[in-house]
C-alpha cells in the first residue's frame, strides 16, 4: 500500500514538474482563484465564486460545474486543487483543473472534498444559467432562463436586463421577463404582477403568494386577482394531469394482468407464480444492461424479445413439471404455484443478490414531455402506456387472427370436441401458458423502468393482477384492458383526498360490491364459452 502511495505521489510530483515550464502554472491566475475557493470559510465562499466569475476565465464554467457536482477536491499533502473525474470505489481518477490533463488515480484517503451546500448550489445554478444565456442554441438559452426563475437577486438584475435587450428569440425573452418579474414582485413592483398574471410556472405562483401576504394592500390585492386567474387555468390542467396519472397507473395494471388474463382467464389456471414471471422479465433487462454496458437504450430494446423468451421458457418448465399434473384441481394448483413463486424469489436472492439491482433509464426515457408550465407528462410512463397498448393489440391479433388463437379458443370452449377435431390439446396448453408467461416477462421489462428490480417485485403485482382480471371478466381480454384503466383512474382520482392507503382499500371494497352485483365481471363471457 505505502509503496503504491509513494509511487502515485512521485508520479504527481513528476507530472507537475514536467508541465511547469510548459504552461508556467505558478503564474496561472486560475490557481490562485481555485485555492482561494478551497480555503474560503463558509461565509466567504460567495466572494470566492464571484471572483472566479468576474475573472472572465474561459475555464470558469468547468470549475464551477465541477464544484456544484462535488467534484472539486484538494490533495491532502500538497494542497493542489483537482477535479475528480470518477469518484467510484476507493481510488479516484483525478485531473488538473488548470491544464485539463488526467493525473491518474489516487486513493480517496488522500483527497479532501471542497465542501458545498444547497444554498451555494442554488446560487451556482443561477450563475451557470447566466453564463448559458450567451449560448448559441436558443433551447439552451430558454432552459437557462427558466433556471433563473426565482434565483434572480439584486446583482443579477442589471446583466439580465442587458441580456433582454440583446435577446431576439421571443420565448427566451418571455422567460427572462418572467424571471425579472418574480424578483420585482418581491420588491413590490405592481407592473411585475401583470407580467406574472398569465404564468403557470410554480415559482411565479410562489412569488405571487408571497406578495399576497405583503404589507402593501394594493400589491396584495393585485396579486390575489392574478392568482385567481391562474387558479382557473390550473383547474383544467389538474384534471388532465389526474387523467394521465390514472391512465398511466392503469397501463401498468393492464401490463401486469394481461398475461394472467391468458393463463387464468383463458386456461383457467390459477398461477400464483405469475408475479415472479414478471420479475424474471425485469431481471432479464438488468442482465442485458450488464452485458451491454454503456448502452442502456439498446439493452432495453433487446430485452423485449429476451424477456419474453426467458419468461416463456420458465412458463413452459412450470407447466410441464407441475401444472399439467394438477389439471382440474384449482386448489392444488394454487398451492403448488404459490410454492413455485417462493422458490423463484429465494432463487433470485441466493443466486443474484437480496439487494435490488440498478436498471438504468436511458436518456430518451427520463424527464418529461412539457405541455405547459403546470402540465408535463413523465416520459417513462408515457412509453409504458404506449407499450401496454401495443402488447394488448398484438395479443388481440394473436387470439383473433392466428391458427394458435383459433386453437386456444377451441380448446377452452370445448376440450373434448376440439381434440376430436384433431387439435393437440396438450400442445395448445403449453403454447398458451408460454404465451401468457412471455407477456408477463414483457411486463417485467416495462416495470423495470418504473419500480424496483428486486426479489419482491412480483409480489407487489400479483394481487392487483388478479383483481383486474376478475373485475374485467374472466376470459375476456377487452375486459382486462378496460378494468385496468378504470381501476387506475379511480385510484388516482381518490388518492389526493383519501390518501394512498385508503384509496387502495376503497378500490378493493368497490370491486367486492361490484362482484356481488355482477359475479362475472365487467364483460362476462356469453354463450357456450360461459359454461366451459
Amino acid at each position, binding site marked *: 500500500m505505502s509503496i503504491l502511495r509513494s509511487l502515485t505521489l512521485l508520479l504527481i510530483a513528476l507530472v507537475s514538474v514536467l508541465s511547469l515550464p510548459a504552461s508556467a502554472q505558478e503564474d496561472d491566475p486560475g490557481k490562485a482563484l481555485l485555492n482561494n475557493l478551497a480555503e474560503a470559510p463558509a461565509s466567504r465562499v460567495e466572494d470566492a465564486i464571484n471572483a472566479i466569475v468576474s475573472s472572465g476565465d474561459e475555464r470558469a464554467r468547468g470549475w464551477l460545474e465541477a464544484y456544484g457536482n462535488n467534484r472539486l477536491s484538494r490533495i491532502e499533502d500538497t494542497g493542489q486543487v483537482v477535479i475528480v473525474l470518477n469518484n467510484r470505489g476507493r481510488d479516484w481518477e483525478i485531473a488538473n483543473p488548470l491544464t485539463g490533463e488526467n493525473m491518474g488515480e489516487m486513493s480517496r484517503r488522500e483527497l479532501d472534498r471542497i465542501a458545498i*451546500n444547497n444554498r451555494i448550489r442554488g446560487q451556482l445554478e443561477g450563475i451557470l444559467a447566466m453564463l448559458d444565456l450567451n449560448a448559441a442554441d436558443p433551447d439552451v438559452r430558454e432552459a437557462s432562463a427558466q433556471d433563473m426563475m426565482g434565483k434572480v437577486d439584486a446583482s443579477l438584475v442589471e446583466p439580465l436586463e442587458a441580456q433582454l435587450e440583446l435577446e431576439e428569440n421571443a420565448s427566451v425573452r418571455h422567460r427572462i421577463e418572467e424571471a425579472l418579474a418574480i424578483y420585482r414582485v418581491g420588491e413590490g413592483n405592481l407592473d411585475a404582477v401583470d407580467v406574472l398574471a398569465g404564468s403557470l410556472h410554480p415559482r411565479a405562483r410562489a412569488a405571487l403568494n408571497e406578495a399576497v401576504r405583503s404589507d402593501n394592500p394594493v400589491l396584495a390585492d393585485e396579486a390575489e386577482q392574478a392568482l385567481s386567474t391562474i387558479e382557473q387555468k390550473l383547474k383544467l390542467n389538474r384534471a388532465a394531469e389526474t387523467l394521465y396519472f390514472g391512465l398511466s397507473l392503469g397501463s401498468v395494471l393492464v401490463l401486469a394482468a394481461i398475461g394472467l388474463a391468458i393463463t387464468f382467464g383463458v386456461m383457467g389456471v390459477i398461477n400464483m407464480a405469475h408475479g415472479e414471471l414478471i420479475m424474471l422479465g425485469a431481471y432479464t433487462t438488468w442482465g442485458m444492461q450488464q452485458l451491454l454496458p454503456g448502452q442502456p437504450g439498446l439493452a432495453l430494446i433487446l430485452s423485449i424479445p429476451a424477456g419474453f423468451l426467458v419468461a416463456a421458457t420458465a412458463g413452459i418448465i412450470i407447466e410441464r413439471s407441475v401444472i399439467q399434473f394438477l389439471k382440474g384441481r384449482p386448489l392444488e394448483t394454487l398451492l403448488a404455484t404459490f410454492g413455485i413463486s417462493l422458490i423463484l424469489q429465494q432463487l433470485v436472492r441466493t443466486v443474484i443478490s437480496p439487494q*435490488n439491482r440498478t436498471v438504468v433509464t436511458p436518456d430518451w426515457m427520463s424527464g418529461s414531455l412539457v405541455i405547459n408550465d403546470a402540465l408535463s407528462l413523465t416520459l417513462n410512463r408515457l412509453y409504458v402506456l404506449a407499450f401496454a397498448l401495443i402488447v394488448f393489440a398484438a395479443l388481440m391479433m394473436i387470439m383473433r387472427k392466428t391458427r394458435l388463437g383459433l386453437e386456444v379458443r377451441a380448446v377452452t370452449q370445448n376440450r373434448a370436441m376440439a381434440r376430436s377435431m384433431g387439435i393437440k390439446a396438450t400442445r395448445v396448453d403449453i403454447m398458451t401458458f408460454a404465451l401468457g408467461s412471455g407477456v408477463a416477462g414483457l411486463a417485467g421489462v416495462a416495470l423495470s423502468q418504473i419500480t424496483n428490480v428486486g426479489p419482491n417485485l412480483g409480489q407487489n403485482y400479483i394481487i392487483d393482477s388478479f383483481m383486474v382480471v376478475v373485475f374485467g371478466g374472466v376470459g375476456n381480454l377487452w375486459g382486462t384492458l378496460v378494468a385496468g384503466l378504470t381501476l387506475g383512474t379511480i385510484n388516482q382520482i381518490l388518492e389526493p383526498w383519501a390518501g394512498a392507503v385508503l384509496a387502495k382499500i376503497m378500490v378493493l371494497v368497490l370491486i367486492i360490491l361490484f362482484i356481488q352485483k355482477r359475479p362475472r365481471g365487467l364483460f362476462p363471457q356469453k354463450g357456450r364459452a360461459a359454461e366451459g
Partner: protein
Amino acid sequence: MTIRKHVKLGLSALALSMSLNAMAAEDPIKVGILHSLSGTMAISETVLKDTVEMLIAKQNAEGGVLGRELEAVVVDPASNWPLFAEKARELLAQEKVDVIFGNWTSVSRKSVLPVVEELNGLLFYPVQYEGEESSENVFYTGAAPNQQAIPAVDYLMNNIGVERWVLAGTDYVYPRTTNKILETYLMDQGVAKADIMINYTPFGHSDWQNIVSDIKRFGSAGKKTAVVSTINGDANVPFYRELGNQGISASDIPVVAFSVGEQELSGIDTGPLVGHLAAWNYFMSADSDANYDFIDQWIEHTGNEEAVTNDPMEAHYIGFNMYIEAVKKAGTTDVDAVKDAIIGVSVPNLTGGYATMMPNHHITKPVLIGEIQDNGQFSVVWETPSTVAGDAWSDFLPGSRDLIADWRKPMFCGSFNTATGKCGASAGEMAAEEAE
C-alpha cells in the same frame, strides 16, 4: 504489499495457534445473529449478518476475548415477525447464546422483546427507531428520534430557512410515531398547522405520481418547503425517480430522508437526486482512518470492490465493541454482570469520535446531515457540534414527557415517571396504553 500481507498472515496464524491452546480449555462465547436472510427484509438485514460475522472473525484473529474464541450462531427468521420470537427462543434456550445481535423492523423487535426479557438474554438492536421503549435486556445502538429526526428538522429550519413541511412516511409504527413527534415539535416552534402536510403510503408503494404532484403544488405557496421522509425500503426508489422526472430538484424542494442510506442508493441511478439530504449518524464517506479501515475490511470480507457500508452496520460495529469491552470489564459473559458493566463503556465510532452506553441503554451519537452525490455516496454538510445522547422517551409526546429510563441501581427502571415518582408500567404495557 504482498510481503506485508504474508507477514500479517503469519502473525495472525501464530497468534491463532497460541490462543488456540488457551481457548481449547473453555467453551467459545456464542454470539447469536437474528437477521432475516430471506423474505422482504433480506434486502437490508443480510449485510448486518455479514457485518457481525466479520467482526467476530476479526476479534478471533486478535485472540478472542477472555482467552475464549467467539462463535457465530446464525438463524433465519425469514422476515416473519412471530418467527423472530421463536428463533430468539431457540437461540437463548437451546443454543444458549451469550448475546444476540439482531432485528431491523420495530415490529420484529416488539415480538422478540418478551422472549429476551423472560429468558434474560442480551439483544443489540442496530437500527434507528421511534423510541418510547427501554428494556433491561435490550441495547439500542441505532438512533432515537432526538438523534436523527429533530436535529434534521432544526437544520432545515435554521440553515435552509424552511417554513412549510411535508411529512411523508410509510404506514407503520416508526413513521407514525416519528411524525407525531415532529408535528408537535414543529408546532412548538411556531409552525402553523396549515403549513404541515402529512402523507402515508403502504409498504412497497410504487405509484408516486399523484403524491409528488401534490408536494409540488404544496411547495408553490411562496414559502420554502421541504419534505421530511420516513418512507421505508424499496418504496424510495420509485419516489425519487418520480421526483426527478417531475423536475423537482433539491434546490427547489429538498427531501431529507431518515431511511435512505448507501444501501438503498446502490439500487438507483442517483443523477437526478444530487443535493437531496439524509440524516444519519454515520456515512460511508466519513473521513476518518477507522472508517477507511472498516471499509477495507468490509470489501475484503465481501470480496466485492463495490460493497457499501451504512449506518446500521456502524451501529453493530459499536455495539459489538461495547459488548467485548463490557465482557472484559466484567471478566465474565454472565448476562447480569455484563448488563451492569456495559453502562458507561466508551468505544470509538467510525466518524472519528466516541460512543458511550448511557444508563437508559441508548448510546451517544453525532448527528450528520449528508447530501446525495452522483456516486451514490453522501457528503456531510452539517453535523452537531458534539455527540447527542439517545432519549428513550420523547419530550414531544404527551404520554412520555415525564418518563425517564435508568438501568442503574437503585432506580433500575425503564419507565420512571418523574411526575408521580413511581416506576411505571413495563415498556410493553406503556406502548399498549399509548396505542389505545
